[in-house]
């Protein structure tokens, strides 16, 4: 059993022990889960050393089909596995405090371990089939975690919605995998790479396949058409949002796209689709974030918008940029942003969790205020995180956002959209900070807020370090080759940092000392009414069609054919009964008639012969 397999299977083991053995003792199960997360993190440090495929298990083979659970370590996996296990461990520790007195604590930690198992599965996968398996397992564990407080109707609906939207994405993902398998007969990434070099495939098929596979990423990373589940997923406990909806799960889509850049390069049409969907998501999410009043919803939309950035960057892989193909480097930019984003977004979410915990589960920012004095450590770490997200120069956000914008710099439309989004990001984050931390407390709960216990503050501090240092070469150099990052030309970095500062100042100026939101843009607040549109779509197509199908089923098939034949036979029966009247004469008459007919027939046959 190689170390990779241990990292993969340990959380599963923890989850099963919790489910079967320590279900009745919540504290013990909590520690079981945290220990497994810690061991996994330590093992990943060991794992960063070796490369290439590490062990495989022949899961299913019949006829010509070979599906394997095979693990491989590449540059991408190293970066991602570190993020997953580190953030996972920190969230585990944070949850010890956050979920201390929760009723379903054992169930919560079992869900967390199951999630760690599925996430490491995606990261270490070396072929599409295994990735799809863990893709769905991640969907299920997010369903369990979002629906943790399943007694609340809203949480139950949110978890169902999340799973179904993910499932639609999986439908596309599977279709893409099948198309690729049909065309090349290969599932593993290395195999696909070699197949592409060997022969050129019919481009329309390849483009369709890549669009389908991107559809899988859209489902998982909540890009525009399928993003509706992420804001509702905030129903789950905050550490869950931090782990799943900030750092790891939503990044799985981008990670998968980064792993198959050579395929995107071979499918230009699909690539442009990816870029534009990414940019659109970034812009739309940023606009929606400016009008939200729930602290977690704002962070959710900000995650959406950052994901849009990453997807846009990955979309550029294989595009000719003034003479030489920037190829791999574009997707590296996307992955670099993913790497840094994981740190400061997890920091922001945990910070929000600390604030909510301190304000006795109050999530509306308009009921908070003046928390800087009351919760200094959380406030400062939160502000640093905001600065990193806004892209102020020394912090990691600046470097990765530059790389992303550099990847998009030859496409002016996307460049402009990126800049606008950068401004909006800075704007809504500073809006959040001014309302929550500065000014005076707006509610009793906010006034009595006190600093969160140590077990919750330590992860915040560690993540702040990550947010600050992740941008420098030594932090990302060992898994992305700095040379392959697209270099921003001319004044791009300067312009970006100016936009960032402008956003922050604008936010502070407009929102300091306000008790209610001065800008009222209904469309943004109501999330462009997309939810309502989806609701209608589901009601009309699915339930309407289902109702029609049910009616047809009862009328046509059941009524006409089945009952129809029954009625026909009984009808014939009653008709014939008429002949059995008791009347003697009618019997004799029929008898006579029969004789005559028989004689007539005989005579015909005699005479005709």
């Amino acid at each position, binding site marked *: 059993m190689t170390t990779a397999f241990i990292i993969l299977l340990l959380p599963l083991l923890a989850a099963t022990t919790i489910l079967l053995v320590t279900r009745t003792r919540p504290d013990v199960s909590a520690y079981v889960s945290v220990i497994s997360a810690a061991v996994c993190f330590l093992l990943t440090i060991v794992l960063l050393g070796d490369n290439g495929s590490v062990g495989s298990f022949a899961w299913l083979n019949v006829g010509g089909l070979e599906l394997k659970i095979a693990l491989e370590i590449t540059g991408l996996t190293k970066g991602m596995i570190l993020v997953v296990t580190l953030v996972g461990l920190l969230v585990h520790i944070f949850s010890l405090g956050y979920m201390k007195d929760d009723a379903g604590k054992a169930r919560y930690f079992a869900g967390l371990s199951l999630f760690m198992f599925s996430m490491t599965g995606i990261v270490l996968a070396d072929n599409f089939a295994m990735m799809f398996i863990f893709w769905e397992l991640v969907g299920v564990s997010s369903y369990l975690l979002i629906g943790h407080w399943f007694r609340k109707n809203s949480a139950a609906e949110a978890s169902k919605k999340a799973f179904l939207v993910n499932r639609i994405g999986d439908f596309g993902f599977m279709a893409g995998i099948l198309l690729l398998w049909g065309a090349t007969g290969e599932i593993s990434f290395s195999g696909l790479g070699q197949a592409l070099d060997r022969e050129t495939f019919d481009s329309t098929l390849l483009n369709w396949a890549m669009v389908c596979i991107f559809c899988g990423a859209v489902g998982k990373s909540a890009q525009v058409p399928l993003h509706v589940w992420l804001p509702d997923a905030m129903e789950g406990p905050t550490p869950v949002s931090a782990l799943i909806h900030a750092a790891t799960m939503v990044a799985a889509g981008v990670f998968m796209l980064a792993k198959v850049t050579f395929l995107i390069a071979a499918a230009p049409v699909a690539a442009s689709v990816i870029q534009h969907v990414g940019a659109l998501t970034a812009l739309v999410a940023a606009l929606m974030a400016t009008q939200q009043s729930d602290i977690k919803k704002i962070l959710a939309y900000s995650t959406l918008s950052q994901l849009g950035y990453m997807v846009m960057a990955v979309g550029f892989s294989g595009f000719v940029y003034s003479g030489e193909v920037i190829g791999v480097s574009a997707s590296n930019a996307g992955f670099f942003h993913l790497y840094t984003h994981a740190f400061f977004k997890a920091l922001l979410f945990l910070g929000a969790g600390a604030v909510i915990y301190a304000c006795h589960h109050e999530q509306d920012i308009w009921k908070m205020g003046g928390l800087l004095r009351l919760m200094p450590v959380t406030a400062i770490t939160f502000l640093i995180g905001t600065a990193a997200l806004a892209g102020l120069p020394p912090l990691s956000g600046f470097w990765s956002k530059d790389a992303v914008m550099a990847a998009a710099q030859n496409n002016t439309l996307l460049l402009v959209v990126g800049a606008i989004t950068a401004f909006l990001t800075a704007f809504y984050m500073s809006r959040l900070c001014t309302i929550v931390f500065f000014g005076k407390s707006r509610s009793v709960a906010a006034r009595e807020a006190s600093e969160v216990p140590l077990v919750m503050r330590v992860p915040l501090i560690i993540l702040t370090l990550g947010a600050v240092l992740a941008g420098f070469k030594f932090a990302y150099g060992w898994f992305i080759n700095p040379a392959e990052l697209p270099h921003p030309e001319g004044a791009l970095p300067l312009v970006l940092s100016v936009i960032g500062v402008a956003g922050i100042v604008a936010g502070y100026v407009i929102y300091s000392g306000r008790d209610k939101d001065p800008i009222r843009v209904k469309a943004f607040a109501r999330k462009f009414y997309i939810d309502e549109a989806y609701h209608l779509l589901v009601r009309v197509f699915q339930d309407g069609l289902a109702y029609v199908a049910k009616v047809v089923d009862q009328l046509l098939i059941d009524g006409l054919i089945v009952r129809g034949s029954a009625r026909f036979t009984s009808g014939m029966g009653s008709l014939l009964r008429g002949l059995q009247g008791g009347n003697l*004469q009618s019997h004799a*008459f029929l008898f*006579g*008639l029969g*004789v*005559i007919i028989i*004689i*007539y027939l005989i*005579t015909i046959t005699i005479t005709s012969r």
Partner: protein
Amino acid sequence: MSVLFYIFSAVMLVFGLMVVLNRNPVSSALSLVVSFLGLAALFITLNAYFIGVIQVLVYTGAVMVLFIFIIMLLDIKKEQRRDLNYVAMGGGIIVVLALISQLAILLGDFVPGNQQLATLPEGSAVHQDVKLVGEAVFTDFNFHLQLLGILLLVATVGVVVLSRRQGRADRSQQ
């Protein structure tokens, strides 16, 4: 000889028709008796003397007597003018006419039917047909005769049972 044939067949058919048309059951029974006599005569013209005698003896003698006895026993009145069931009437006539027409068509091209009745030579065996038929019955068809005997026995027992059952049924009805 053919004159006799026509007379007797006319008698038979007319009185047969009278049986059907008559209102009073007694008169129809009597007309049936005459019709059977005509029939017996026809048998005689066919030199089947034994059958002719049996016809008179059994049918006319025993059966018709029984009929009249029953009619008197149950003293069935003359039939009142019940509304004629036209459907049955019409149906009956249609079937009968179809039957007759079919018979006529068939007999039309029934070639062996045109042979004339040849008078038997003197002293031919047919004249002792009673002895010959007797021999035939008691030698070749002996078994059938025994069977017939049993049948008649069963019929008589049946009649006795039916009429006796009738007695007890009456008692239970009162």
